[in-house]
């Protein structure tokens, strides 16, 4: 911020209309303004950073917002309202707030759940289900943390993250049908075969 700016970085004044007199012909009582870039005049400092790149925190849907449809986010997203449809935040974090009521399939890198979800949840990295959360649906993730008191009904499929994908192997032999292993020797056990 202390380096001098080049002329190209300074703001361009709007062009005068064709019929307007030249600036030199207009009498002015004010002294000519000078663009400065000093700490003593912050109100005049020009911020060249475009609005789109400003750091404004994660995107958020408030508790009074209802959305039906598809949501694609390229940044972290917090949902605290009602959503019906699908939500995708690939490579980003999705937070379901305590007031949220979501009927949707969710996909994200990391999903943190405080509210209510009915739908399947797919997180490539981690799912964190807080104690006040209610989730009815199937989970697919690499890691899961579930607090005591959380309500969950569904299945959990842990898919280990693959770092180096190995060369394709020939199809494995079919798994045998699940059979109980041989009875563990236990003097207290008695078997009633039917």
């Amino acid at each position, binding site marked *: 911020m202390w380096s001098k700016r080049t002329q190209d970085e300074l703001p361009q004044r709007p062009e005068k209309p064709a019929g307007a007199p030249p600036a030199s012909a207009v009498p002015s009582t004010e002294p000519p303004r000078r663009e400065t870039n000093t700490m003593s005049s912050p109100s005049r400092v020009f911020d060249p950073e475009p609005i789109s790149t400003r750091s404004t925190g994660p995107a958020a849907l408030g508790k009074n917002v209802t959305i039906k449809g598809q949501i694609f986010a390229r940044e972290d997203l917090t949902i605290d309202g009602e959503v019906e449809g699908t939500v995708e935040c690939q490579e980003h974090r999705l937070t379901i707030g305590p007031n949220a009521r979501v009927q949707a399939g969710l996909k994200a890198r990391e999903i943190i759940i405080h509210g209510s979800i009915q739908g399947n949840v797919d997180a490539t990295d981690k799912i964190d*289900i807080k104690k006040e959360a209610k989730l009815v649906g199937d989970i697919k993730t690499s890691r*899961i*943390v*579930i*607090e*005591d008191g*959380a*309500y*969950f*009904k*569904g*299945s*959990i*499929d*842990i898919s280990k993250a693959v770092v180096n994908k190995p060369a394709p192997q020939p199809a494995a032999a079919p*798994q*045998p*049908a*699940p*059979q*109980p*292993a041989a*009875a*563990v020797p*236990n003097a*207290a*056990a*008695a*078997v*009633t*075969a*039917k």
Partner: protein
Amino acid sequence: MIFGAGKGIFPKSTAKDAPPTLTRTSSGLNQFCSVLGAYQDLSILDMSGASQANISFVTGYGHRISSDDIIGTMGECFGKDLLEGQQAASNAQRFLDQSLTFPDNSFDGILVWDALQFLSSPLIEQAVAQLLRIMRSGGQMLVYFNSQEKAVRFPVYTYRIQDHRTVTQVARPGSTYQRSQYFNSRNLEQLFEHASSIKFFLTRDHLRELIIRK
């Protein structure tokens, strides 16, 4: 070191009036887990509700786990008095519509724990039929029944697996339910008469453990 810690001899209390948290050795669980280690890609249903311990234990073997809180569903459908609430046909049907609604042959193993003892006839027979329906042929389920003849009301526990033969019973706050009846060996053989085998494990702490095989 605390003497007896982790063995259930001196159970620690979670709150002033709450039933104690118990840690016990389970031969039935040991039998159940022998299958977990012998096969891959099994589907296991845990009917004690979701807990980090059980999820980590089952998925640590590489298996898929499903969670369903059957006692929680009983509370929703029957109210505070489970036995009285399930006498109404509409409540019983609502329970069957909400619980054990999985497709046929979905699971290789089911951890039922002690939930069945709070159901009375004919609902308990219907629930057992549903359990056998959703379990694959050759699969097995672990079921507990309290074996105290005179006791009537029991605290409701969630069961958390610590290792292949140790389970921690954590009391649900404020929940004690009346058992529908005392189940002796003959009752249990009749209840699971459509299973291919029943294996009983005798325990020291008033809990009868069963491995039911389809």
